[in-house]
C-alpha cells in the first residue's frame, strides 16, 4: 500500500488519495485553432511511461488539495512530491 506524503498533511495511506493521472498536460486553445488530431491527443493520448511518471494526486479524504507526485510505475517508489503549479524537479523531467 502506497504511502504518499501530502505536501499539506504529511505521509498518509493511498486510501486517502485519488490519482488523477498524468500531470503537466497543457490545454490547447483557443478551440478554433486546434485540429481534431491535436485535441484528441490532448484528451486521450498519454505518455504512460514505464518508469518515472509525473502525475497528480488528490488528497480527497484529507485536505482536499491536488498536488504533483513523481513516481516510478515499476517500483512504485515516490521520488518527489511538489505543489500544483510548480515545475517538476529538473532531474526527473523526461
Amino acid at each position, binding site marked *: 500500500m502506497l504511502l504518499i506524503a501530502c505536501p499539506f498533511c504529511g505521509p498518509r495511506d493511498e486510501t486517502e488519495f485519488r490519482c488523477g493521472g498524468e500531470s503537466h498536460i497543457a490545454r490547447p486553445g483557443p478551440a478554433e485553432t486546434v485540429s481534431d488530431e491535436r485535441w484528441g491527443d490532448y484528451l486521450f493520448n498519454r505518455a504512460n511511461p*514505464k518508469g518515472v511518471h509525473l502525475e497528480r494526486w488528490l488528497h480527497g479524504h484529507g485536505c482536499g488539495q491536488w498536488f504533483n507526485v513523481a513516481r516510478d510505475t515499476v517500483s512504485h517508489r515516490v521520488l518527489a512530491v511538489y505543489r500544483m503549479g510548480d515545475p517538476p524537479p529538473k532531474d526527473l523531467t523526461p
Partner: protein
Amino acid sequence: MGYSFLRLAREALRDHTGWRPAWRDAEPKPRYDVVVIGGGGHGLATAYYLARNHGARNVAVVEKGWIGGGNTGRNTTVIRSNYYFPSSAELYDLSLRLYENLGVDLNYNVMVSQRGFLFLAHAPLQLEMYNRIVNALLVNGIDAELLSSDEVFRRAPLLNRAMRWPVVGGFTQPRAGIARHDAVAWGYARAADRLGVDIVQHCEVTGLRQAGGRITAVETTRGTIEAGAVAIVVAGHSSVLAAMAGLRLPVTSYALQAMVSEPVKPILDTVVNSPATGVYVSQSDKGELVFGGGLDLYPSYAQRGNLPVVEHVIAGLIEMFPAFAQLRLMRKWAGIVDVVHDSSPILGPTPVDGLYINCGWGTGGFKAIPAGGWLTAHCIATGGHHALSAPFDLGRFATGALVDEAAAAGIAH
C-alpha cells in the same frame, strides 16, 4: 500427431515418452514476412490465423518472457459477448463463436464451459437498463435473458438474500462462461507451430526500425529481425512498444488483481457479477473460486497489487455470498491492463506503414482472444481493416467516434 484419448492410451503404455514438444522453441531467423510482438493469447492467435486463414508461412511470434505469461495467464477466464453496441457485440460474438469450437479447431482442450454469465440488478432502474441491454443483444442476434430475482437465486442459491443492495433481478447470457486460460495460449501456440510459425521465447524487442515511414525491422535482445509487417500485441506494454515507433497511444497501464480461494466441491454453477460491489466470481473446474473487482487506480507496470483493493474485493464477494466467508484466500496476483477512455480495443493499422496494433482491451482481453487474433491477422494480410475491426481504429480518438460501452450501458466491461 493429434491429441485424443486413444493417443493418450497408447502413450500410457510407453510411459508417455512419445509426446513431442507442444511447440518448438525457434531460433529467430534474420527475416520474416510478419513479426508478431507478444506471445500472449492475442499474439499467438494472430500468428495462427495468419497461417490458417491467409496462408502466411513465414511468421514469427517474439515474446520477451514465456508465452501466455502476461494477461492471458492472469485473468479470471471469463468469455462472453453481452455487449451493447452492434460493433462491440459483433466483435465479441465472433470471439465467442470461435471459442465454442476452439477445442476441436486447435485439437487442444481449452475447456470452454458455457455456464452462463449473470449480471445482478440491484434496483428497478438497473433492471430497466438491463432490459435495454437484453433487447440490444436480441436485436443483434445474441442470446440474453432478463431474469426475475427468483430466477437469479435459482441460478446462484448461495447468493445473499439480505444483501446490502437487494437483488431485484438480473440478466444472463447463457452461452457465456469460462475457459482454461493457459490452455488457450498453449493451444494456439501448438496449432501455429504446426503451421510453421516460429515461436521465439525470451526475445525482448528493444527497438523498431523504419525507413520512409514504413516499418522494416524489429531490434531484439537476440538480434535484429527484418520484417515485412509488424504487429504490436502486448497488452500491458502497448505504450512502451508504440513509443519505439514514435506513436503515442490513448492507453494507461493499471494493475488489475485477481484472486482464488482454496478449492471446494461445486457450489457455484455460473459466473456472477454484481455492479454494486464491482465483484465478479466463478468457480473453476478445480473447485477454486476465481474472482476479481476493481483496479488499483494509479498507473503501474508492476505485476502486483496492493492491500486495499484486496480487502475491498473480498468484502464485496462476501456481501454477495456470505457463506464464502468460511473459505480462505489461497493466492492473489495482478496483471497489467491497457485502459482506454472508451474501454474498447484499438485494433488495426497505425500511421506507420506495415505496423499494426492490437491493444486497449482493458480488463476484458481474454474473452476477445480468438476475434482479436482473427481480425489482426486479417488487417496484416490485407493491409486494411476488416469490417468488424474498422470501428476500433486508432483514428476514432481524433474524430470522437468512440465506442463507449460503459457510457452507453452503465456496465464497465
